[in-house]
């Protein structure tokens, strides 16, 4: 997956150049470019002396121009460094990396230990092969120095490569690609240093660096040495390379240090009359590269554009070298992991805070419910109420017992309506009946004794007595005839109505009239 935006940082001897590219459907677009001065003393003799100041300057430039990119590539700032094409022996070693490492170690200008190197296979006549390798090496400390400094200011590098490789990448689409019948010599001029690259039939084939000793001008010793180097390369190819096309094109990529670039171009064309000579300047980036919509491309560093292109998907010379160590590259993934961890932790904290808030809210609601329940409920404590209930129950028991006793006292064989009972007896007494004795004991029965003329009268008397509401039943207890006067002696036992007896003694009294007693007659 290709990241959409990529930032290239090219640091020359006096300037910082930035190019921000974005890969769209139509191609790569230059979003922004910027350049700024190097801090004083940041780079001395091609090496970084003040990495913090340099990183700060880069960060400021990036921030000022509001450049945000997911991928960042920077040019190699280390001297000495090695950029070399290595031929593999006929017996290809099993561990090519080990072989390349041992070859690089023999380079006199580089340290034996702590070496940063990378290599890539080179294509042969349009076909990829492993017989030749392009190797880049430098002291690891010098490479990681700027990577650490930039990491501390929030810019994590993805790649470090020489500026000349980036420049050829930028020029590849328009100046190198599809040149099947010619050799293209790219001369990248940076102050007094010139990097020569040869693409034979559009395939990278040769690289060489030359220090001209002074800034290149349209004439003078530096120019003569420049011409001399080009002629030497062309001569080398004409003599030593058998299948060289013989046709040449020269592309001189100049930076701002070259004075009078037009005259320089004229001089070059004059010297190499039969060879196409092209000048690539910061002002002509849009013409020399395949960037689209390059209206903002004026004064953009070609190397910065090439560096930015490294992390984008596009056809190039397949020079994929990266001097950034795996550890340094891991820093970015570590930071991503740390950021992810921090985000998760922050999310957890937020969730906890929200949870605590929700819990508190719920607890408050519950507390409010409890409070309202307490307010709605009985004001006194339940225990007191139970005590009160117990006291009331005891009082009820006490009162009930008293009432029961009182009722028992009042209900004991008591008749309160004796006058009415006597009245009923008098009204029930027929004319032929005479009462001689009336006896009541314990208030439950009344025994009536007397004399009668006939039995019918006695029966009538007993029947009539039962009609009284105060008498339940009557029983003819005995009869006998007096032989002297012929009268019939009788004895009637009346059972008094219970309800009547209780009517007044019971607290819950009932009227005798409402409770009609049952009447029965027993005996004759």
């Amino acid at each position, binding site marked *: 997956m290709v990241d959409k935006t990529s930032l290239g940082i090219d640091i020359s001897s006096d300037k910082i150049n930035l190019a921000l590219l974005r890969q769209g459907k139509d191609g790569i677009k230059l979003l922004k470019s910027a350049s700024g001065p190097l801090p004083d003393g940041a780079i001395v003799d091609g090496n970084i002396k003040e990495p913090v100041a340099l990183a700060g300057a880069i960060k400021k430039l990036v921030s000022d121009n509001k450049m945000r990119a997911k991928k960042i590539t920077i040019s190699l700032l280390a001297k000495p460094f090695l950029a070399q094409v290595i031929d593999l022996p006929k017996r290809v070693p099993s561990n090519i990396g080990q072989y390349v490492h041992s070859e690089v170690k023999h380079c006199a200008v580089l340290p034996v230990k702590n070496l940063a190197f990378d290599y890539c296979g080179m294509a042969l006549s349009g076909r990829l092969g492993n017989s030749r390798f392009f190797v880049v090496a430098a002291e690891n400390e010098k490479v990681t120095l700027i990577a650490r400094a930039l*990491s501390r200011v929030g810019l994590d590098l993805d790649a470090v490569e020489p500026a000349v490789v980036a420049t050829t990448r930028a020029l590849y689409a328009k100046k190198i690609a599809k040149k099947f019948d010619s050799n293209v010599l790219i001369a990248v001029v940076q102050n007094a240093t010139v990097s020569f690259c040869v693409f034979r039939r559009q395939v990278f084939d040769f690289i060489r660096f030359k220090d001209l000793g002074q800034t290149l001008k349209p004439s003078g010793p530096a120019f003569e040495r420049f011409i001399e180097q080009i002629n030497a390369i062309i001569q080398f190819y004409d003599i030593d390379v058998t299948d060289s096309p013989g046709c040449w094109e020269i592309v001189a990529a100049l930076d701002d240090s070259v004075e009078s670039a037009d005259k320089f171009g004229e001089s070059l064309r004059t010297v190499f009359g039969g060879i196409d000579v092209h000048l690539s300047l910061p002002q002509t980036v849009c013409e020399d590269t395949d960037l689209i919509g390059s209206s903002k491309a004026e004064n953009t560093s070609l190397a910065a554009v090439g560096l930015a292109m490294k992390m984008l998907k596009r056809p190039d010379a397949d020079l994929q070298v990266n001097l950034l160590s795996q550890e340094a590259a*891991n*820093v970015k*993934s570590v*930071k991503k*992991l*740390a950021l*992810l*961890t921090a985000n998760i*932790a922050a999310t*957890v904290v937020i969730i*906890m805070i929200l*949870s*605590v808030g929700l*819990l508190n809210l719920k*607890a408050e609601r*519950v*507390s409010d419910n*409890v409070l309202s*329940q307490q307010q709605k*409920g*009985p004001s006194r404590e*339940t225990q007191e*109420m*139970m005590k*009160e*209930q117990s006291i*009331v*129950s005891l*009082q*009820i028991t*006490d*009162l*009930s*017992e*008293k*009432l029961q*006793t*009182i*009722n028992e*006292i*009042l209900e004991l*064989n*008591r008749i*309160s309506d*004796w*006058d009415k009972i*006597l009245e009923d007896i*008098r009204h029930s007494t027929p004319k032929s009946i005479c*009462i*001689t*004795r*009336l*006896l*009541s*004991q314990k*208030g439950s029965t009344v025994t009536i004794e007397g004399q009668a003329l006939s039995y019918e009268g006695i029966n009538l008397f007993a029947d009539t007595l039962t009609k009284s509401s105060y008498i339940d039943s009557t029983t003819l207890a005995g009869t006998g005839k007096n032989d002297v006067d012929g009268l019939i002696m009788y004895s009637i036992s009346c059972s008094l109505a219970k309800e009547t007896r209780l009517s*007044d003694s019971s*607290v*819950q009294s009932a009227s005798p009239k409402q409770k009609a007693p049952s009447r029965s007659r027993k005996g004759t």
Partner: protein
Amino acid sequence: MFFESLAKLPQVTRIAISAVAVIIPTAVCYSWIVVPHTKYLSATQQYEFVAGDLARKGQIIKSKTNLKKRELQELQQRLIQSREKFFTLPEAQKFFREIEVVSNQTGCTVLSMSFLSSSKYGLKPKSDKETPGKAPSIISNGVVVNFAATYESVMAFMAKLQDRPQKVAVDMLEMTSIGYNPRILQCEATFTIFIINDKEIFTNE
């Protein structure tokens, strides 16, 4: 330096460190921050349940207490009503004094009167501090009256004696006709009244 040190570690280790860096603080924060609130909420909910239950029980107890209070009031009312059925000691003395007067008023001629010994009805004392020598709460006193009267006079006599709020019980009544004058009856009646010795028994205070 921190990131560079981490970058030197294997990826598995880095992931493990990140996981630990999240899990341990999360667990600690959870136990220190969230758990107390969770427990507090749980305790509050339990308290709410208990309080609700207590409130319901309180309501039930209140209702029951109110019912019992009403029942107590009814009992007290009934007790007060039953109070009218009893004589006080002065009323009893007056009643016994008035028997002869009433008999004369109703046409009855009292021949003799004999008082019966008192019966004692013990009520459960309100408190256990009942004085040993104190009389029982309710006592019954009776009198046997021998009198001569007509049937109508006996009725009037009975009506007059019993025409009062207090209970006048007729334990025994015997009427016998005298041979020489069938209208005049020889009567013997036993009247019993109930006397309150301690009026406090009708209160429940």
